[in-house]
Structure formats: C-alpha cells, structure tokens
C-alpha cells in the first residue's frame, strides 16, 4: 500500500507530461489530416512549385510565398546577425560590468515585446520612411526584414553569448600570453572555436523569423506575386495562413493547412539542424 502511494505522484506527473506531448501529436496529426488531401489532389510539385495562388479558381501554388519567406528571412539574417554577434562579443569580452548589467536585460526585454507591437511600430514608423526616402509603397520585403532583424536579436545574442562563455579560459589566456591583442584573440581564436554554437544561434534565429506572423502581416503588403525587388510587397507562408483563414472553406481551407505542413517541415528541419550543430559544439 505504501509502495503504491509512493508511486502514485510520479504516475500522475507522467500523465500530465504526456498530455503536453499529446497536444503536439494532436496538432501534427490534425494539420496533416487536413492538409494532405489537397496536396494529393493538386500534386506536391504543383503545390510547392506552382507560381499562381488563386483559390477561387482552384490554383494553389505556394512558390511565391516560399520565396517570400526565404527572402524576408535572409534579409533579417543579413541585417540582424552581424549586429547580434558583435553585441555578444561586446557583452562577453569588452563591456564593463556596469554596462552589461544594463544592456543584457534590455536585450532580453526585446524578446518580451509582443509581435503585434513590433508590427504596429513598423507600420507607423518604418513603412512611411521607406516610402518617402527609398520608394515603393513602403509595405515591402525590406520593411519585413528590418522588423524581423530586430525580433531575432535576443535569440541570436543570448545563444552566441552562451557559446562564447562556454569556451575554456585557456584559449583566451594562451592567445593573450603569446602576445595577441584582445581583438585578435576574439577574431582568430574565440570566434572560430565557438563557430558551431554561433551557427546554431543563427539557425534558431532564422527559425524564429520563419515562424513569425503577426508583425510580418502588418508590414509586408501580402501581395501574392513574386517580389522582384526589396521594395516590392511579398507574402510569407505564415502570413498566407494568417490573412486568408477568416473566410476560407473547403479546398481553400485545406490548402492553408497544407501551407502549414510546408512551414512545419521547414521549421522542424531548421530546429534539428540547430540541435545537431549545438551538440557538435558541445563535444
């Protein structure tokens, strides 16, 4: 009896843990259940490589949105990653304690701002300036990239910092001892040594950018055509679901779930690559 009583709490907690897992399973099963029929109907090639999205006419090609997602995400990485890596170097190597005590929580605060606030800020601040100073309608790949670049900063900075701090002290001490300057040490010893950790940070940041929806819907313009320049509006996979789910039914609704499948596959592959590189860096 006592034995049973001992094991009961463990059992209950196991059940609760399993319920979290089963939520994941439920979501995945549901998305596939809803999305696979339309992929089977249209054909995987036609769905992922089709150029025309016109659900009213039965055309379900999401290549423009895949390219939209890739270009906005790359733009965010190009703008955000250098800033993020230099910031983490500054925080781990150069910043006086008093400064990093302020900067570090401030960056984490960026992660706490709701994405709708980013979107609204982008819409009222970044979009008009792009329209006035650079041209085009303002709602554009560029506007989306700028917003996402800011949104991925906390992720990339904190993981880069962790991998820099995880390096053995001897690397740094050895390098300084043979007469390298602090910058040479960072550039030629510490950064290469932390390479895979930093790669993982970048990939996780990209994963965050690929999945972001609300902020991007507001500043991207959501046109279904392929963007031809940074100043053209575009649509990502997430915003395709977000903007059209309201009135979608039948095939159209299934096609949105199918868009979700593509998105899920992309995000899961990115995460597994990041996990694998992180593991390699820990060995």
């Amino acid at each position: 009896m006592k034995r049973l009583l001992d094991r009961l709490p463990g059992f209950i907690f196991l059940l609760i843990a399993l319920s979290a897992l089963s939520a994941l399973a439920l979501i995945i099963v549901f998305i596939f259940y809803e999305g696979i029929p339309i992929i089977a109907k249209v054909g995987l090639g036609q769905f992922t490589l089709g150029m025309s999205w016109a659900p009213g006419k039965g055309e379900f090609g999401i290549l423009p949105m895949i390219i939209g997602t890739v270009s906005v995400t790359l733009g965010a990485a190009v703008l955000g990653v250098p800033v993020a890596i230099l910031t983490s170097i500054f925080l781990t190597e150069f910043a006086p304690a008093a400064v990093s005590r302020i900067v570090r929580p401030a960056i984490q605060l960026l992660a706490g701002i709701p994405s709708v606030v980013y979107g609204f800020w982008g819409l009222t601040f970044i979009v008009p300036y792009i329209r006035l100073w650079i041209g085009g309608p303002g709602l554009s790949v560029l506007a989306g990239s700028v917003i996402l670049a800011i949104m991925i900063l906390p992720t990339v900075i904190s993981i880069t910092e962790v991998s820099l701090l995880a390096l053995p002290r001897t690397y740094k001490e050895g390098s300084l001892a043979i007469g390298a300057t602090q910058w040479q040490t960072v550039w030629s010893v510490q950064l290469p040594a932390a390479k895979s950790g930093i790669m993982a940070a970048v990939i996780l940041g990209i994963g965050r950018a690929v999945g972001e929806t609300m902020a991007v819907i507001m500043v991207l313009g959501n046109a279904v055509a392929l963007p031809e320049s940074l100043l053209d509006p575009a649509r990502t996979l997430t915003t395709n679901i977000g903007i059209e789910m309201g009135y979608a039914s039948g095939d159209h609704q299934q096609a949105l779930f199918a868009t979700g499948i593509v998105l899920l596959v992309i995000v899961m592959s990115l995460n597994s690559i990041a996990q694998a590189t992180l593991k390699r860096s820990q060995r």
Partner: protein
Amino acid sequence: MNPLFSDRMRNRNLLRLAGMILVSLGLLLVSGCSQAQKAHQIIIAGSTSVQPFAEILAEEYMKMHPDISIDIQGGGSSSGIKAALSGTAAIGMSSRDLKGDELSLWSAEIARDGLAIIVHPDNTVNELTSAQVQDIYIKAVDNWAQLGGQDGNIHLFTREEGSGTRDAFVSLAMDNADVTPKAMVQDSNGAVRQLVGDDPGAIGYISLGLVNEQVKPVVLDGVAASHANIINGSYKLSRPFLFVSNGDPVGIAKDFIDFVLSEEGRQILTREGLVTRDAEVQS
C-alpha cells in the same frame, strides 16, 4: 528526523497538488458540458458578407429573447441559398440577386451594401471610369499621370481571397476579371482605409459606410458614391443583402426577420455602414 521533510509529508503535499490539478481539470470539463441546451434554436447560413451584420442583429435579438439561440454560419451566398432550399437553415443569407430556380424562394432585402473606391485625400484624381478602374486593377495602368493625376506609381490595395467585399468588387467593378497578384492584400476594410489614408499613391476599395475623412471616395462613371445614388440604382458598385427562406418564414425565423426589417433593425444596419430603405418583401 525533521517531520517537515519526511517522505510521507512530501508525498502528501504532492498528492494534494495532483488532486488539485485533477479537480480543476474536472471542473473545466463540467463547465464545458453544462452550457444548457437552449429551448429554441434556428440556423442562419450563407454569405460571409452578410454574416457579420447578421451576427450583430442576432446578438441584439437574443438580448431581448434570452431563451432563443440563433446560430449563424458562413459558407457563401450559393450554399446559404441551398441550405434554405433544403431546410438545413431556417434563413439563408445572400449578397447577390437570386436567379433561376432560386426565384421560387421567399426573399427580403434587408439592406444594400455599397463599395467605395477610395484614394488619398491629396490625390488630384477625383473621378474614374469603370474602364480605368479595371485597367488599374489588372495593372494595365500603373501611374497616376496616365489618369490625369500627378506623376507617381499607383499602389494597389485589395482584400484577401474569400472576402465578400473582394467578391463584390470583382463581380461589380471588374466584370469578373482577376485582380493582379501584385496588388497588396489586407484583411479588413479598416486596414485598407488606414493604408490608403497614409499613402498619397494608394487606391483601394471599402464598404461605403466606412468611408471617413481619412480617405476620398472617387466619383465612378460620373456618379458619386452616395446613399441616394445607391437607393436610386445609379451607382454601379452596390449589391443587395437578402434573407431567403423556403416558403413564408414562420416561428422564430419570422420573428427575427420582422425584427431585422423593423425601424430598430434598420437603424442597427445603417449604424454598421449599410444602406437601408423600406424593405421590399416579395414572395
């Protein structure tokens, strides 16, 4: 041994916690099921353009008749008419005129919806022809100078696939020609109005009732977008909102339709941006 940390004690605390979780889960379940089945329920289905207005009307009606529940579903005009024919729905909602067999249904026009084509208030173009609007939306024309305005690219805004406002625009203004995929897509009247009001090069379309001083409605084919011109039928971009039923409505359906057609119902619809007149009832 400190009794506070005895195994027994810890287990008891764990058990208590687990019990609390179980009880709260149970409460959730119970509250989910206990939504009492209402005695009187009718289903209204059809046009997604009429749906939001029907929901507002139903809400007001249910406030006065708490024992009645009105379930409003989308699906589109055609499926709403079918549902009314087959009796699946007590009332069908349509945002187009009835045709063919459908004319045998009982119908009442609850209001008319007007679309306004809007530009920035500073735009010097005040008037467009239907042909010009079509050229703009298939991107045959892409500079305001070609339409007698100041030099500058035209920034096109449209609504998302599946939106009733988009359907109305495509059938009434575009003669069913496709809107260019390069047009920027927003998912509400409000968003289109906001963005057109911010961008001197923009053009978009919204429900007439939602036009305000942020934007300028253009005169179409020499006819101003106004309440009077919709009632007298001279303004092109207008469509009926119909309630249909198989035979004369009876019971709750009749009572609800009477409410919608009453002075109070018309005031609600006018307040929400629709155009109403003394309803025509035909059988």
